[in-house]
């Protein structure tokens, strides 16, 4: 398969969710940008609540990622299934953290500083 073919497949696969992906990226970039303009630094701010919330969002993927694919966690069975699922959960947790951590700074971190 050519690279163009791979991109064609990717575009067809992502097309139904393009609005969601764009909305997610916009929220992430907006929160990061606003927080940084107000003094937020990734490693300079600590918030256990945001960390735990991001972890919970990631772990929630164990339920809704299979449901999103019309399946259930009980069918995640092979080693590759688990690698894919754990990768998705980690990715989800990181994405959530990149939003929740600066958001927490905007809501309460700046007051505490």
């Amino acid at each position: 398969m050519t690279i163009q073919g791979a991109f064609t497949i990717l575009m067809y696969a992502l097309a139904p969710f393009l609005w969601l992906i764009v909305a997610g990226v916009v929220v992430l970039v907006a929160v990061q940008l606003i927080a940084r303009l107000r003094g937020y630094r990734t490693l300079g701010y600590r918030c256990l609540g945001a960390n735990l919330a991001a972890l919970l969002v990631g772990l929630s993927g164990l339920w809704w990622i299979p449901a999103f694919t019309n399946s259930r966690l009980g069918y995640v069975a092979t080693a590759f299934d688990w690698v894919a699922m754990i990768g998705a959960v980690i990715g989800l947790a990181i994405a959530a953290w990149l939003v929740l951590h600066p958001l927490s700074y905007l809501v309460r971190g700046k007051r505490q500083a």
Partner: protein
Amino acid sequence: MSRVPFSTPRLDRRQLLKLGVGAGAASLLPLSGLQARTLSTSARIVILGGGAAGMAMANRLSNRLDGARITIVEPRETHHYQPGWTLVASGVWRPEKTMRPNANFVPSGVTWVRQPAVGIDAEQRRVSLADASVLEYDYLVVATGLQLNYHLIDGMSPDLVGTHGIGSVYASIEGATRTRDAIDAWIASGGGKGIFTAAPTPVKCAGAPLKMTFTTLSRLEDTGRRDDFQVDYMSPGAGLFSQPWINDFVKQRFDDQGVNRRHHYRLSAIDPGARQAEFTFVGPDSEFTSHHELREAEFSQEGERRVIADYDFIHVVPPMSAPDFVRESDLIARDGPFRGEWLDVDIHTMQHNRYPEVFGIGDVIGAPINKTAASVKAQAPVVEANLLAQMQSQPLPARHNGYTSCPMITGIGKAMLVEFGYDNNFDFLPSFPFIDPRDESWAAWVMKDRMLQPAYYAVLEGQA
């Protein structure tokens, strides 16, 4: 004859995105890797059928040929993603998800004739159309798909699907939707007997009858009242699936899930009002591939043992063959297991065995396996390379290894990615070293549910 209007230079969102991403990727590639060599020709090429195979060939040939007059004959305006019909009939997908306009896939520069073909004169190199017009060709690609022969089951008609407890995922997208409704009604009734059948001929997506059984079992088990439902599977042959390991697996799984298997019976008649089906014993030697012998010896109605079975739901799989106008043409197989029923091609080169300017691809060809969209993906580059070689009077360089794939759904939410080919008794040909075709997995299901449809459209566009 009608022609697709040439598209304006305006790009839609999808094309624009692909162009942008593709341009980025293109900058990373050496030029030789991007451009396959084109051939200048004024040859008239007719492609019969605009399904997966026909559309893939239209795109591939229009990319590779400069100056060729390519015509695709396809009466339907809507392209159906048929591999999704099992998911529709199982209540997982909405039917709209499987439909797109054919106009999205017909390449510019290719003439689209919106007429059904009704005849082929291979000697004169002519195709007759329903409006009495004629297309002359120098090269012909037969990609008509196949014909559903519901009429070979007495009392059965595709119009009955969705009524009287009758389902049939093959009938059409409307039929798949009505099959879903019929299964819903059976489950809502709280019990009774369901019969799942298979056909005594090669069929497209040979796993579909099994998938329908497995997904229905999933739904029955989810009711918590599985024991109130009886599930029978009636098979005309000793086997349930071509690939031996999967065949054994499915048999064992059916036994484990309480499916009553009966072999060597074909569905011969149906009485919708009485909800009764008649099955005819076809003998212990019958197998899927002995299609012609089955027609001669077993479609006869005399002296056969018959069983009448009551049902509350029945899933009907009709006998299948090449379309009548192909069967009545010079292109049909004259001997061997596919004689009188399927296109006579070399299953490796895809070239017709008697007419070298004719190639076949997809469901219509006489081959022991290979009536899947995945097979089209593997066959299309072979037909492209060999047709171009034939046009240049060169030896045919490409060979099809029989690759086919069936994401065997073993329950709603899990599947096995079964890929195999002709060699070594249909040995596995896995595409991904990290996915074992013998394992039921969520990843294989996700591929079926999310990734194979995009891959299918890429095949249509000649990109995969």
